[in-house]
């Protein structure tokens, strides 16, 4: 079946937006796509789903209020919570290719970098 990269990209975008992948889509991918197309589709799907996934890292397990706040901020995305004590305080959010750092560890790293530059 002749499918351009653009078509595969659009297909991946739509599949990633669905909460459940239907059996017809699974069948289509298994039966109609060539090996090369399937590889390309997986690449697009992985990228699209990571763009829709939000990873929140905090030093302690977040409270319900914090979780609600994040859910409201990212209504369309699935949120994963990770506990990373090394952050000290604050949080780190990763969504798509953006990383937001607001934690003590990063602040200390920046201070060290600045001091190294000035020394």
């Amino acid at each position, binding site marked *: 079946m002749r499918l351009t*990269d653009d078509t595969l*990209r659009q297909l991946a975008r739509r599949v990633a937006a669905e909460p459940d992948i239907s059996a017809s889509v699974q069948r289509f991918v298994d039966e109609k796509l060539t090996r090369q197309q399937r590889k390309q589709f997986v*690449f*697009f799907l992985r*990228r699209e789903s990571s763009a829709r996934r939000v990873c929140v890292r905090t030093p302690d397990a977040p409270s319900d209020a914090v979780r609600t706040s994040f859910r409201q901020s990212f209504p369309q995305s699935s949120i994963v919570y990770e506990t990373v004590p090394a952050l000290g*305080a*604050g949080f780190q959010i990763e969504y*798509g*290719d*953006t*990383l*937001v*750092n*607001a*934690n*003590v560890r*990063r*602040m200390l790293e*920046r*201070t060290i970098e*600045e*001091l190294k530059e000035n*020394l």
Partner: protein
Amino acid sequence: MNAEDFIKQIEEKLYTATIAPEMINQGTVDSVGDGVARATGLSQAGFGEEVEFDNKARGLVFNLDEDYVSIILLSPSTEIKEGMKVRTTGKVLGVTVSRDLIGRVIDPLQNALDGRDLKLSGELCPLERPAPGVVDRLPVDTPLKTGLKAIDAMTPIGRGQRELIIGDRNTGKTAIPIDTIINQKRLERGLKQVICIYCAIGQKRSNIAKIVAKLEEEGAMAYTIIVAATASDPAAQQYIAPFAACAIGEYFRDRGEDVLVIYDDLTKHAWAYRQLSLLLKRPAGREAYPGDIFYLHSRLLERAARMSKERGGGSLTALPIIETQANDMSAYIPTNIISITDGQIYLESDLFNAGFKPAINAGLSVSRVGGSAQTRAMKQVAGILRIELAQFRELQAFSQFGSDLDDDTLNRIERGKRVMEVLKQLQYNTFDDASEVISVFAATAGMLDDIPVEKVGTFEEEMLAHLRHSHTEMFGRIATGAKMSEETINELQNAIREFRKQSVTL
């Protein structure tokens, strides 16, 4: 800074710090090899932006595709692994320049190569910058003396000019700029000290070490910076090396100083760019070079300029070097650079092998703007030099077909041989202004015509030494560069005649 101040500085930072959110655009290395990495993510990356990998290695965004970002690696690719995170820095690649760089040997990423500590301070100058505009420039009118008679007389170079040095391998291409650097320690006629930047691209480390040692021996490192991307460095470093050298030069140029930048050589630079372009799967054109290879070199060489008074009055002179294959000047890269530059010095392997050094082919070498930068004295004596040589070459070729030549032809051939002898010059043996003028004058005025060809060199050397000591006042008058009066010419002729009588060479 003492320990107390240091502690205070850290404490201040810790106690006053607020955790401000920092947003980073990041990606993941998908594949890596041959000095190029491909990363997904990095949706905010800009063309030419510097990126940083997890292990602090640096790269440069070179291609922005729909699904990938291609990055050229400024560090060896073995340090980068698949799956590694890479982040944008929001910075374009640049060099931190101050006068501290003078006398140093660095790579394009400003790591010291001379074994001494290098503390970077000063102004951050981006590698890529637009060339000065038309109104910011002045015509080239100040000479940049090479100390080589053949060049200063026939293809003079002016400050702010771009003069190509072209020739096959082993024809003395590098020797010319090295002599030029050494000659800059002569501060003649109150001209400003020229800061020299020698940019070695794809050369052997041993060659660079030899050049550094020679410059140090001659005391020329006091005003020289060497930027080296050697043959073993990644192609990306070789690609950015001339831009780094140019950015350093611009820093001094914009502060009113005169700068000479030598790109040794742009053939290897073109190879490095071709390698990167092919690895990035950019469409290949003639000789597999990418379509923008002309623009690559033109935007680099356009940055050479003599600036107006309002812009500081500095200058940046560029001496690019190109290596030809089998004397083929009509290859792609040589023709490109010839059309960009303001002239070329063509070195011929036949001349070199015949012992004529510097092996400059007077017929194919030209300086399109340097004439206006030549001193009046040199212009006065060198005016007929090119014609004499052209006639000599033609007659010499003609004389090979027959033995019966009239006296005039024979005289011209004999004169030509002596002129050629006078233009010979040993490496690291640069001449001052006055010596150049006197030598060229003696040859073109026929004052060496009855001296055996093999003795011309020795005679010239002794004559100059004699005139320098016995006719100091006249020597000084010629050194001013002003047009020589009838009186000076007569005095010079008499002095040479007088010396001939007492010369031990004859």
